């Protein structure tokens, strides 16, 4: 645990990726199994359960510090684990800390009461840095500036193998990764994962460069709609089947209605959507299913899960990722023929013979609430995990815009701790402002500083961590879509709102009205 915590501190405060890589490889070389495997799991975010809940930590903390002082400290520090790490009272006792794996084992085997005892025991003898490490580990919230992708790359460097090999194996292996290290250190063969029901790394698209229209040769590009659902992967082998989200989480339990309809082996890439009698519903409808880990029968009947398929990675039990897209599409069509379900549909290919036609289709797609824009994929593209250059492009529909007035601000977390960076904005209804959304992105660091400063100078009230500000600053808010919503007082919900421009120049009275906002709702036909 001690060396794990030291590693985390070093990684946290090191900015260079090269140095981070050196630090981690050095740690892997001098740390035995299974400790190093658990460290990899913590860094890559592959631990599967929390040792304790944030609420449990908070409860224990509040037994030791005044609730208001805790709240003020938390508001200032901007982060729970660090707040507790500093606030927890030191003990005069000393105790040799266990190894990382021993510690994990103790927490895994403990029941709820014992978990509390363990937490108290260790927090009391730890340094603030060690406390932070334990709390981050136990709640799976570790961020030290290393992405999962970087961790894989460092592992590849460590074992002198290709990162794509690690990618392919990744989801079939589990912490503490002893098989992986055996292979990386040359003590055994590469782990065999052929029949495993696991997530396969996906291929991603680049945004279409603006002002740089694609030279369109019809034979070269396959044009499809970009659907406004969530990207999923269906895996069916002899051993079983599962549906994975784009982050590799198994979401099978939430969509039994979809899984029940398909038995044909393969690994299929597509979009999860609500499909009702052949009609695609909005993201808002899908959201209601996404919120339920185990949906009831009524909900499944009202909002049936559908699958818009667009690629195939494994056909039966044969990997086909090396084949060009045009051939994979044929295989996908064959696979779909065997499935025969009205909620599993092939993503249609759109014919666009000229650039003018393509733009017309794009404009049309932008008006369709069920799609997010277009996808342009090279016909000859192999299925390469990651985001290979020049292969696939997403051409997102143009954002909608509203001029709104900042009403409330809240401090951010992590990197933005102490900055006012989360903003609630509203539009006019008569002479009143109605909040219609929250945004916390779309501004530069420079603008963030200015916004923060503005909030501090223009605060007029405080509700806990929320600062009410003078209704004077207008921002042009961009968002992907606007839907009617019963959950919001204004009656509308914005999809992915973010700052487009800060209108320091514009008087608040000239901001948009609720009627302006309502007029942007595309009716669903």
């Amino acid at each position, binding site marked *: 645990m001690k060396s794990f915590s030291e590693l985390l501190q070093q990684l946290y405060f090191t900015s260079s990726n090269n140095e981070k890589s050196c630090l981690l490889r050095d740690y892997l070389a001098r740390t035995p199994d299974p400790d190093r495997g658990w460290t990899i799991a913590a860094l890559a975010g592959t631990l599967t359960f929390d040792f304790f809940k944030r609420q449990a930590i908070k409860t224990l903390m509040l037994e030791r510090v005044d609730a208001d002082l805790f709240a*003020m*400290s938390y508001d200032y520090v901007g982060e729970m684990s*660090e707040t507790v790490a500093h606030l927890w009272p030191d003990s005069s006792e000393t105790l040799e800390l266990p190894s990382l794996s021993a510690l994990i084992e103790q927490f895994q085997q403990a029941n709820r009461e014992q978990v509390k005892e363990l937490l108290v025991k260790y927090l009391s003898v730890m340094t603030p840095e060690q406390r932070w490490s334990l709390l981050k580990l136990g709640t799976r919230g570790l961020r030290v500036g290393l992405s999962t992708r970087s961790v894989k790359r460092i592992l590849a460097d460590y074992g002198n193998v290709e990162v794509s090999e690690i990618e392919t194996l990744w989801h079939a292996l589990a912490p503490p990764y002893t098989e992986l290290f055996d292979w990386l250190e040359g003590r055994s063969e590469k782990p065999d994962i052929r029949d495993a029901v696991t997530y396969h790394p996906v291929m991603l698209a680049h945004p279409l460069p603006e002002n740089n229209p694609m030279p369109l040769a019809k034979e070269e590009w396959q044009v499809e709609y970009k659907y406004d659902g969530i990207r999923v992967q269906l895996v069916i082998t002899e051993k079983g089947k599962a549906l994975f989200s784009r982050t590799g989480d198994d979401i099978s339990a939430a969509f039994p209605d979809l899984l029940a309809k398909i038995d044909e082996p393969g690994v299929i890439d597509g979009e999860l959507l609500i499909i009702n009698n052949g009609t695609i519903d909005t993201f808002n409808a899908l959201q209601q299913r996404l919120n339920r880990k185990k949906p009831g029968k009524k909900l499944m009947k009202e909002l049936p899960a559908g699958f818009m398929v667009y690629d195939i990675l494994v056909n039966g039990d044969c990997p086909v990722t090396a084949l060009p897209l045009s051939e994979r599409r044929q295989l996908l069509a064959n696979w779909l023929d065997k499935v025969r379900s009205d909620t599993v549909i092939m993503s249609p290919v759109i014919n666009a013979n000229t650039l003018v036609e393509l733009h017309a289709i794009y404009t049309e797609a932008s008006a369709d609430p069920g799609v997010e824009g277009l996808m342009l994929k090279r016909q000859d593209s192999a299925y390469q995990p990651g985001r290979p250059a020049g292969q696939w492009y997403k051409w997102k529909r143009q954002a909608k815009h509203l001029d709104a007035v900042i009403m409330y601000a809240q401090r951010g977390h992590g990197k933005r701790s102490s900055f006012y960076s989360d903003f609630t904005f509203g539009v006019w209804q008569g002479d009143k402002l109605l909040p219609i959304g929250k945004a916390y992105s779309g501004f530069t660091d420079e603008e963030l500083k200015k916004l923060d400063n503005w909030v501090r100078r223009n605060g007029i009230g405080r509700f806990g961590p929320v600062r009410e500000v003078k209704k004077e600053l207008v921002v042009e808010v961009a968002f992907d879509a606007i839907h009617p919503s019963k959950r919001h007082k204004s009656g509308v919900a914005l999809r992915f709102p973010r700052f487009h421009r800060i209108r320091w120049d514009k008087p608040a009275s000239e901001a948009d009205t609720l009627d302006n906002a309502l007029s942007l709702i595309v009716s669903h036909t």
Partner: protein
Amino acid sequence: MQAEDWLQPREHGLYCLPADCYIDPTTPVQCALITHGHADHAIGGHKQVIATSPTLAIMRTRYGDDMAAQTQTLDYDQPYQLGFDDDPVTCTFFPAGHILGSAQILLEYRGKRVVVSGDYKRQSDPTCQPFSPVPCDVFITEATFALPVFKHPPIAEECQKLLQSLQLFEDRCHLVGVYALGKCQRIILALRELGYAKPIYLHGAQLKLCELYRNHGLDLGELTDVSAVTHKASLAGEIVLAPPSALNSRWSRSLPKVRKAMASGWMQIRARAHQRQVELPLVVSDHCDWQALLETIAEVNADEVWVTHGREDALLHQLKLSGIKARALSLVGYDGESDDTSDEEITEGAGGL
């Protein structure tokens, strides 16, 4: 007569009515009592300034010999009469332990004793006289680090981290962000006490004030101006002290393989260190941490505590829990630990919150 009837927070600072003078005013005034030389407390352009001799020297160094039309040196423990002879205010300075020359100001009027403590700390600091608790009716305190999360470790511990890092990264220039007045000299002395005898390199902005500290009898060892070093590569493995604003500036780019450190009380909060791309945070503060604030307030045993700038919410709450009468003065313009660098992101937007 209550203290608030004759000592009032005004737009430009705390104003003492019967003495017709301000304490640490943020705009030029007729008569100013100055607690210490940091730029947010001591500005140039007053008609008359009353301060300790080192504070006056600091103000002259910063603002020139004509920084005020008239100056009055007041040593520690020397009562000085202000106001009318038949209704006087007696003013006495006591050491505040914050930086060289820093003072608490005791004001006595019609039998009431009010201590304006200015910025102060209780940790040991060889660059200035230690804080001396002054019993009083009203104690006016800052609240820069007034949250229970703040715990300032001993400075030797933090400077040891710097020396360890020098051993570990012997090819890297260790650039340490320190405020030019007070922190800089305190860090130098702490390094010397740990046996670090090599020259310490300074950014131009630090030189004059180090000279001033030397003139006040502090042995800072060998100091070298970075701009006088022709081969910057020779600074690998050396310590360079610079104002925090220079950490990420063009100036620092000429230094070899910089490892950025920063000495400030804020460095305890990791996101703060991260925001400034600091690789080696050193928790060194010239203010009180939470515990020291509470202990000091208990020690001076005042009937009433007034809180000036910082995180006054938390301190007021705690005092209320302890049954001590307290109020916030909400003075605007004192930046806590920022000194002359106007570091908005690190000072949490000043005390005007």
